[in-house]
């Protein structure tokens, strides 16, 4: 009996092996829906939005406003804290778990584009977005003639902040004047020369510009004049060596912390837009802000050229609700939302109408940064290999024990460019 049972089981097993798996379920594609619906048929929508920690509340409120615009749709939006600098990296790590709509710094755009994880701006928004934002910010959001993201801010840069009781407005026009005034008062001038974001000004002032990446992802530069760039580096180097007791290279936060000391140890510095609120509170009535000063290169006062970034809002390609995400990104980057953020968070807008508003004009830091933006190289199309060699260059330019001879600087420049290009 048992033997027979065993045989039956064995035969049954035989059968299971040869029975093929049934055909999988048939996929029914969603039928295209009414054309007038901005959501194109999407409903019961849940979205995740990434915004920097300090702005989560602002964004949440704006998202609530967005939901209120469409009462007949069921939408829920969750705003999660995520710094803009790391947004791209985190998105690349796991696009499925990332936000549908996310804010990021524009220097990461090529990374997102190359990995194909960002959805371009839809056609119906394109013209409007291009029209309402500054040309530079649109350029910063465009690669290969495709508008890839919505400009969010126009002020991701740095500017000159000074203590009016030490540095007069007239002094603040030239770097020489600022340093002399600081020396008179025995106070410091602070900038982060050991950081590629700031130290690139040593070369940019001499006419170097970024020219995107080539197909292999190698950094390209414009056709700059090597002698002029070296002359600019030399001017900075000599000035810093001359004022080595006044000039201090430290993290940007040192500007506000030095000014907060009693008595103030720092009289002027180059500070980031994101710190503006803190510095203005620390200095009170003595708060001075302006575009970066000029520097004397070979007898000629030359405007310092900075690097200027933009913050963008992008749409994750893995989103389940692409139509709603685009609509939301468009909403979050329009004039109303940019103005709200300018009021609440002092974020400088990229929107042309918002820039002209009183809120922005009365904010001297934002005006200074937007003024400096006219003398800047946009932070777009930058290879990851850019920052480290530029940091090294900055360190070598300011350090008192390094040479400021033309030949040495020329070699430094050549090596820096070669390192960035990884040749």
């Amino acid at each position, binding site marked *: 009996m*048992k*033997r027979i*049972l*065993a*045989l039956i*089981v*064995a035969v049954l*097993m*035989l059968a*299971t*092996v040869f029975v093929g*798996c049934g055909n999988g379920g048939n996929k029914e*594609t*969603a039928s*295209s829906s009414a054309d007038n619906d901005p959501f*194109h048929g999407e409903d019961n929508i849940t979205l995740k939005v990434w915004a920097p920690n300090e702005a989560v509340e602002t964004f949440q409120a704006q998202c609530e406003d967005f939901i209120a615009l469409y009462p007949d749709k069921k939408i829920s939006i969750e705003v999660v804290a995520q710094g803009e600098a790391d947004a791209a990296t985190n998105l690349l790590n796991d*696009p499925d778990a990332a936000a549908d709509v996310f804010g990021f710094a524009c220097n990461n755009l090529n*990374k997102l*584009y*190359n*990995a*194909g*994880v960002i*959805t*371009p701006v*839809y056609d119906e928004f394109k013209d409007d977005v291009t029209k309402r934002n500054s040309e530079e910010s649109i350029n910063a959001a465009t690669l290969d003639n*495709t508008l890839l993201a919505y400009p969010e801010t126009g002020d991701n840069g740095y500017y000159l902040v000074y203590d009016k009781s030490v540095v007069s407005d007239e002094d603040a026009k030239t770097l020489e004047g600022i340093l002399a005034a600081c020396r008179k008062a025995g106070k410091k001038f602070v900038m982060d020369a*050991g950081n590629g974001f700031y130290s690139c000004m040593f070369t940019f002032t001499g006419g170097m510009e970024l020219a995107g990446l080539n197909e*292999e*992802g190698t950094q390209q530069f414009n056709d700059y004049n090597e002698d002029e760039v070296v002359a600019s580096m030399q001017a900075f180097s000599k000035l810093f060596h001359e004022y*080595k*007791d006044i000039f*201090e*290279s*430290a993290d940007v936060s040192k500007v506000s912390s030095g000014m907060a000391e009693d008595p103030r140890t720092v009289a002027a510095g180059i500070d980031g837009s994101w710190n503006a609120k803190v510095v203005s509170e620390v200095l009170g009535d003595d708060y001075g802000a302006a575009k970066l000063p000029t520097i004397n290169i070979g007898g000629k006062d030359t405007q310092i050229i900075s690097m200027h970034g933009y913050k963008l809002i992008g749409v994750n*390609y893995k989103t389940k609700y*692409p139509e709603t995400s685009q609509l939301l990104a468009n909403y979050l980057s329009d004039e109303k939302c940019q103005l709200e953020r300018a009021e609440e968070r002092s974020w400088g807008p990229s929107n042309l109408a918002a820039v002209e508003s009183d809120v922005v004009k009365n904010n001297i830091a934002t005006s200074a940064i937007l003024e400096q933006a006219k003398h800047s190289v946009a932070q777009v199309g930058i*290879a*990851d*290999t850019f*920052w*480290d*060699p530029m*940091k*090294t*260059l900055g*360190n*070598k330019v300011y*350090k*008192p*024990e390094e040479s400021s001879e033309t030949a040495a600087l020329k070699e*430094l420049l*050549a*090596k*820096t460019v*070669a*390192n960035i*290009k*990884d*040749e």
Partner: protein
Amino acid sequence: MKYIDYVQLNPFQKFGYNFKQFFVKLPGNLKKFFCLIGRFFKRIGMGIGKGVANYFTRFVKGDWATKLSYLIMGFGNAAKGQVIKGLLFLLTEVAYIAYIVLFGWKYLSKFNTLGTVESGFGVNPETGRPMTINGDNSMLILLYGILTIVITVIFFVIYIASTKSAYKAQQTVAAGKKPEKFSSELKNLLDNRFHVTLLAFPTLTISVFTILPMIFMILIAFTNYNYQHMAPGKLFTWVGFGTFSEIFKVTGGAASKSATFIELTKWTIIWAIFATVLNYIFGMIIALMINKKGIKLKSLWRTLFVVTIAVPQFVSLLLMNQMLQSYGAINVLLKELGIIQNPILFLNSTPLVARLTVIIINCWVGIPYTILITSGILMNIPADLYESATIDGAGPVKSFFKITLPYMLFVTTPYLITSFIGNINNFNVIYLLTDGAPYSENFYQAGYTDLLVTWLFKLTMTTQDYNLAAAVGILVFIVCATLSLITFNLTKSAKNEEEFS
């Protein structure tokens, strides 16, 4: 040298002799080593050959049920009455085939190219909207390809086991006995096959969480997975030893990876030697001082030194970093005291100053551990040894070198070796203190105080040169493995010759 001559040497001469002997014997040992490897592979080959032969012998000798179980796993067992066991074997086969058909094959089939279809922007055919067309994802192909291969190997082992089991069941029946019941086999797992039960879980977790990622990382070194070939947007593919040759290629113009690698390797070894030896010597000296007769409040001193361990290492390191800044506490203090005019850039001026600084700071975080370890051992050295040495007229220095040091070395050599290897990979100190500064335009993404391991970190985190980082990782492993093998060998010979009691 005869044994009697050797015994009369002092410890340093002994060490020198052993050291010389190590190199004299090296060619012979190397030959032995390669012979061993050869024999190992020969044995494996023989084993496989024998296994294959057995596999066919079993097939020829098996009855129809056994023969069928070569195709349908567990058939033979089931036919002989081991129904549950047979079902389990069958289940494994079905699961494996389902896995391959539904999941594994689509990755495994592209494993040799790592994908051919690149992603790009296109138009969604349903809505006419721009969207990303998903191409092949090289990283997932590599990852799941490895997973499939590993699963296939495991399945193959089970498959062989199933044919064996079927044949065994046939033999048992032929001998007129009853095949073993499933319940008794389960009981066996708790009894004379208990080691299998115990080891199953650790083996499984180690393979999933350690071996699988390790194979993945090692294989990345043989691809061109870097910032120019980032998945999911771009494809990467196999390049063989291309990445390794890039590390050793001497190029003009830009900072070459070879120059960076060689310079950082040199510094890593110098760092490891100094960090280990200084911590060891100073820790031992402090422990000796605390242990000295006549020192009062011994436990207070010991506690004070060990308190530094209570502060997390990274906290002390970050604090040190702040104190050593150009306007940090130390510079301000020196300036107030009138010792210096301009601040000293401890961490970011010349390579020598920065390297000295990190070595000295490392003593701060390292010495307490040595004190802890050595003071216990020091208390264990028999006091009569010192007494008789004193009676024989030995001073404190002599008894340190003749009694304390040999005793300590004897006991703590394994600790020394592990801390040496640990220092080669000492990420925290360098990363938190200097982050590689001072930087140099002659190095590729590195500074003068970067160790190989912090360089590796920068390569992965800032420039996404994953292939280069993987290759550097393999080279670091080779360096570490070689050094520890050499040192372990040296200590072994010392242990055999000299017994301390």
